[in-house]
């Protein structure tokens, strides 16, 4: 006993490290600062995200303002080519739109669709996973069998199918509708992974004491699930979400490229590539290649960040 008493004053002397020091001491930050690839990936992602967010202010032209477009400016090669125009750094497309500005606005749309569909997939997956893991019984069986069936098929097929069905039901040529149809198809095609992970963690968490305590003080199921269990199962979800963001952006680009995504009047990166593809054979490579390189860079950077996060949060690999 005396030994313990003697320890107390010494413990109280050690000051807690400041918030900033604690932040830099954190494992995540440490592994981030020690991986050059990850830092580069983070910078690339940041640059593209910033460019996309600030597009209306930094883009040299407004590709949607018909007054600024002139067919006389169409099909111009990049500025450094012999007959390039200095006003259009990366050249222009068949409508006389500035490719650089179109890319800035396009990444904005691609990122928005990607983020929204990942949020939708995560929300659906988390809710179903929590319920399945906590309630068990028939509901659990139904949800997990549905997940099994869906997992049998690749996401692109399911997204195409949902997209096609909604298009057959109504008019999706409208820009606004096309946008939400796309978010819905991509979101619903990738909820399974979240549901499975969350269900697994919930099965573990539900037997812990804090859940029992919450049950004993008479909290209702909803608040136990969403206020107590949910915060404890979120870790893996964030990793899946980061990895799936790259996938969602690819899916969006693919659907738009295939002509069942966003229309040319509101082009995402995929739509831009699809437009440029028509002029590739005429040797006008810049219309397709520049958006393509942007898309590839963005996805690669996001994937690298996701990989790093998965490894950094996985205690087995430390």
């Amino acid at each position: 006993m005396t030994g313990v008493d003697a320890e107390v004053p010494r413990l109280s002397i050690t000051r807690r490290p400041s918030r900033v020091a604690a932040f830099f001491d954190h494992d995540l930050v440490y592994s981030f600062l020690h991986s050059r690839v990850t830092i580069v990936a983070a910078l690339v992602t940041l640059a593209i995200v910033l460019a996309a967010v600030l597009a209306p202010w930094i883009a040299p032209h407004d590709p949607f303002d018909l007054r600024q477009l002139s067919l006389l400016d169409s099909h111009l090669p990049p500025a450094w080519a012999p007959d390039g125009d200095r006003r259009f750094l990366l050249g222009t497309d068949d409508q006389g739109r500035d490719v650089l500005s179109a890319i800035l606005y396009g990444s904005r749309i691609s990122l928005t669709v990607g983020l929204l569909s990942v949020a939708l997939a995560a929300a659906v997956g988390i809710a179903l996973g929590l319920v399945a893991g906590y309630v068990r019984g028939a509901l659990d069986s139904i949800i997990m069998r549905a997940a099994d069936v869906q997992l049998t098929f690749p996401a692109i097929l399911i997204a195409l199918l949902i997209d096609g069905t909604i298009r057959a039901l109504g008019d999706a040529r409208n820009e606004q509708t096309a946008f939400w149809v796309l978010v819905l198809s991509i979101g619903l095609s990738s909820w399974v992974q979240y549901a499975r992970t969350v269900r697994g963690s919930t099965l573990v968490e539900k037997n812990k004491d804090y859940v029992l305590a919450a049950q004993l003080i008479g909290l209702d199921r909803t608040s136990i699930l969403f206020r107590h269990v949910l915060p404890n199962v979120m870790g893996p979800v964030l990793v899946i979400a980061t990895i799936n963001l790259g996938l969602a952006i690819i899916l969006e680009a693919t659907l738009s490229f295939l002509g069942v995504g966003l229309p040319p009047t509101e082009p995402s990166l995929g739509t831009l590539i699809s437009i440029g593809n028509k002029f590739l054979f005429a040797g006008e490579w810049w219309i397709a290649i520049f958006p393509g390189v942007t898309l590839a860079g963005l996805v690669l950077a996001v994937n690298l960040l996701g990989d790093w996060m998965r490894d950094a949060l996985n205690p087995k690999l430390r």
Partner: protein
Amino acid sequence: MLAFVVRRALQALLVMLVVALIAFTLFRFVGDPINQMVGLDTSIAERAQLREMLGLNDPVVVQFARFIWHALHLDFAISYQFKQPVVALIGERFPATIELAFVSALFALLVGIPMGVYTALHRGSWLSTVFLTVSLVGISLPVFLTGILLIFLFAVTLGVLPSFGRGEVVHLGFWTTGLLTASGLRAIVLPAVTLGLFQLTLIMRLVRSEMLEVLRTDYIKFARARGLSERAINFGHALRNTLVPVITIVGLQLGSVIAFAIITETVFQWPGMGLLFLIAVQNADIPVTAAYLLLVAAIFVAINLIVDLLYVAIDPRIRVEARGV
């Protein structure tokens, strides 16, 4: 063992039934089939008669049963846009897709396995780093972008390979093949590489990690101690033991290959089922969509079932587990 087989088969059947239900719902309730079949000048009485004749007034359960009955006899009605039986349309394009999938899988195996072995044996060499970096880029590139870049490089700039179509085909009964003509062989190169690139990176990484794991095991050390040559150890002992998971993954991925073929076929205007499906989705051609869905589901379910059963046959541990349940 038998109980396990029966249970897996029943599960597969259930999946097929669910997919059939989705396909039927699409077929029956998305848009009015009658409107798709007749012209604007058809009278209401004639429409009602046609509706009665086709059995669209029967209870839904009866209609669903009839749908399955017809599907079992490969009768998927008439395509709305081509005005031809769906089975004929799909049958025409089936060989093109299968050939493409087969050649791309072969390409992925033949290139991916040696690359995986090399990167495992020569860790840290500059060529390994190049392989791994390229594979990372390969995974991040969307399939359609790979296709466009290959077209730009080989068809537009260098002009050495064709960028669309299947070339000349030879008819062998119900099967058509492009693998026997020079133009057909040239035409398949770019689409097959595009489609196989993702599998290639997957196989390479898998072989690499499996090899690294196997090389650490005791029996490899023992083989070294026995004085076997490096070559015999690496290929006779190590590689052989990595092949089971590799072949499993390749088998399971065959389904994804068929799905990704939709994109590849669109980029290269390859006259296969994927292109047909995409055009059907774009034009709300529900009979084709439904039939394609059922066909792909059947392929997927069959592959999964076969892999599951093979596992049981190969790995005794699973057999014991299966008996225990």
